[in-house]
C-alpha cells in the first residue's frame, strides 16, 4: 500500500511537470469537464518506438493473431472470458479506490460465480444471471478519476500507446496492486508460477490483436499519418474510460461543430 501511495505522489509530480509548454497539443474535449490537452512531448522518440512496434507487429503479433483467429469461436470466447475474469482481480481494488463500492461488490460476486460455476472464468455465468456488463478498471483510470492529469503521451516498446499517468498506473500492478501478479510472480506459492502470469498477459495481447485485426488494418490503409490516428484513438478511449461514460455526448465538444454550416 505504501508503494502505491508513493506512486500516486510521483504521478502527481510528473503530471504537473508534463503540462509545461504547449508544443504538439492534442485537444480532446472542452465540454462537460475541461480536459487538459495531452502533449506529445517526446514525439520523435515516440514515432521511432511506434515504428519499432509496427515492425514487431508485422513479424510476430499479427501472424500469431491470425492463427489465433482460426481457432473455433467457443475456444476464443472462453479464452477471452477467462482473461477478463482474471482482470476482475485488479478491477475490484480500483472500484474501491474510485469510491464505487457497489461496483466492487458486483465485480466480486462476478469473480466468485465465474471462477466456480464458470470453471475458472471460461464461461461468463454471471452475465447469464443478469449481472451488468463488465467494465475493466485499471490504476491509470483511478489516477485519472482522482484528478491527476495524463502527463505526456508515450509510446512504450511492445506495450504501445500510453501516457505518463497510465504507465505509472501499470507499474502499480507489479508493486502489489494486482492480486493475480501477487500470487504468480511476487510470491512463491506452490500453485502458480511466473509463467501463469506472463502467459495470461501475452494471451490477452493476442486476443486483443485478433479482435481488432480488420479494424487496425483498415485504419492503417486509410490513414495518412497512422501514428497520429492511433494517438488520437488511444487518448479518446482513455478519456471515455476515465469518465466511466458510455454516453458519447458527455465526452465530446459540440462547439467545434456549431459554426460549420453546410451549403
Amino acid at each position, binding site marked *: 500500500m505504501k508503494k502505491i501511495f508513493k506512486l500516486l505522489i510521483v504521478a502527481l509530480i510528473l503530471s504537473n511537470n508534463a503540462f509545461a509548454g504547449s508544443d504538439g497539443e492534442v485537444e480532446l474535449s472542452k465540454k462537460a469537464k475541461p480536459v487538459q490537452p495531452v502533449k506529445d512531448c517526446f514525439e520523435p522518440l515516440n514515432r521511432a518506438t511506434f515504428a519499432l512496434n509496427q515492425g514487431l507487429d508485422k513479424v510476430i503479433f499479427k501472424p500469431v493473431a491470425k492463427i489465433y483467429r482460426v481457432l473455433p469461436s467457443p475456444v476464443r470466447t472462453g479464452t477471452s472470458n477467462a482473461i477478463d475474469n482474471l482482470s476482475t482481480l485488479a478491477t475490484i481494488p480500483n472500484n474501491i479506490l474510485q469510491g464505487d463500492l457497489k461496483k466492487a461488490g458486483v465485480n466480486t460476486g462476478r469473480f466468485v460465480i465465474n471462477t466456480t460455476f464458470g470453471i475458472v472464468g471460461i464461461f461468463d455465468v454471471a452475465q447469464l444471471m443478469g449481472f451488468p456488463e463488465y467494465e475493466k478498471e485499471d490504476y491509470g483510470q483511478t489516477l485519472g478519476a482522482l484528478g491527476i492529469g495524463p502527463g505526456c503521451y508515450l509510446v512504450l516498446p511492445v506495450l504501445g500507446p500510453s501516457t505518463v499517468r497510465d504507465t505509472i498506473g501499470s507499474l502499480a500492478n507489479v508493486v502489489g496492486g494486482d492480486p493475480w501478479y501477487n500470487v504468480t510472480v511476487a510470491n512463491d506459492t506452490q500453485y502458480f508460477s511466473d509463467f501463469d502470469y506472463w502467459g495470461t498477459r501475452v494471451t490477452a495481447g493476442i486476443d486483443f490483436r485478433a479482435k481488432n*485485426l480488420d479494424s487496425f488494418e483498415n485504419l492503417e490503409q486509410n490513414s*495518412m499519418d497512422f501514428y497520429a490516428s492511433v*494517438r488520437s484513438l488511444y487518448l479518446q478511449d482513455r478519456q471515455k474510460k476515465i469518465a466511466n461514460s*458510455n454516453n458519447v455526448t458527455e465526452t465530446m465538444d459540440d462547439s467545434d*461543430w456549431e459554426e460549420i454550416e453546410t451549403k
Partner: protein
Amino acid sequence: MKKFFTIFLFSLLFLTNISYSFSIEPDVFVQSTVSKAAETLGGKFTKEERVEKLKKIAEEAVDIRGIGFYSLGSHRKGLNKDQLNTYEKVFREYFLKSFSSRLAEYSNPEIEVNSKKKLNENYTIVSSTLVATDTRPEVKIEWRVYTKNPEKLLIRDLIIEGLSLARTQKEEFSSIINSNDGKIEALIQNLSDFSSN
C-alpha cells in the same frame, strides 16, 4: 371568396403533405442509409461497381463539406478563399475514396438501429449496433446526424465504441499541418497523393 378559401385550403394540405413526405426522422434516415450500403455490399457487384455505389450513397447522406471544414479545426480560420476551395475539392475526393475503401472490405454487415437522442435543433445522435460475426465482436456505432434542415438530413460523424472518426481525422490533419510548419499545402498534397494512389 369561397373559391379562394378552397384553393388556400388545398394548397395548405398539399404543402403539409409535401413537408411530411420529405422530412424524415434521424433514426429512419440512418437505417435507410445503412440498408442501402448493406444492399451494395451484399449484392453481386464487382469491386469497382461497389465502390462507385458507395460513393454515391456517401454523397447523398454525408456532409462531406462540413466534415472537411471540421477536420481543419483552427487552421481553417487562417486560409484564404483559394486555399479553402482547393482544400474542399481534394478533401471531397479523399473522403469518398477513404469512405468507400473502408466499407468495401465488409461483406453484408448487419446493423441494428436501436435509439436516438436529440442533442439540440442541429444534432441528433442515433445509436446502433454492428452485429458480431465469427471474426469480430459486436460494435456499437453512434451516428451524429445534422438535422438543421429536416428535409435534408446529413451524417457528420461516426462514433465507434465511443471513438469519434471525425475527431481522429481532425487530429491526424492537425499533426500533418503542424509537422510541416503549419502549411496547409502539405495537407493538400497528402490528400491528393492518397486519392491518386
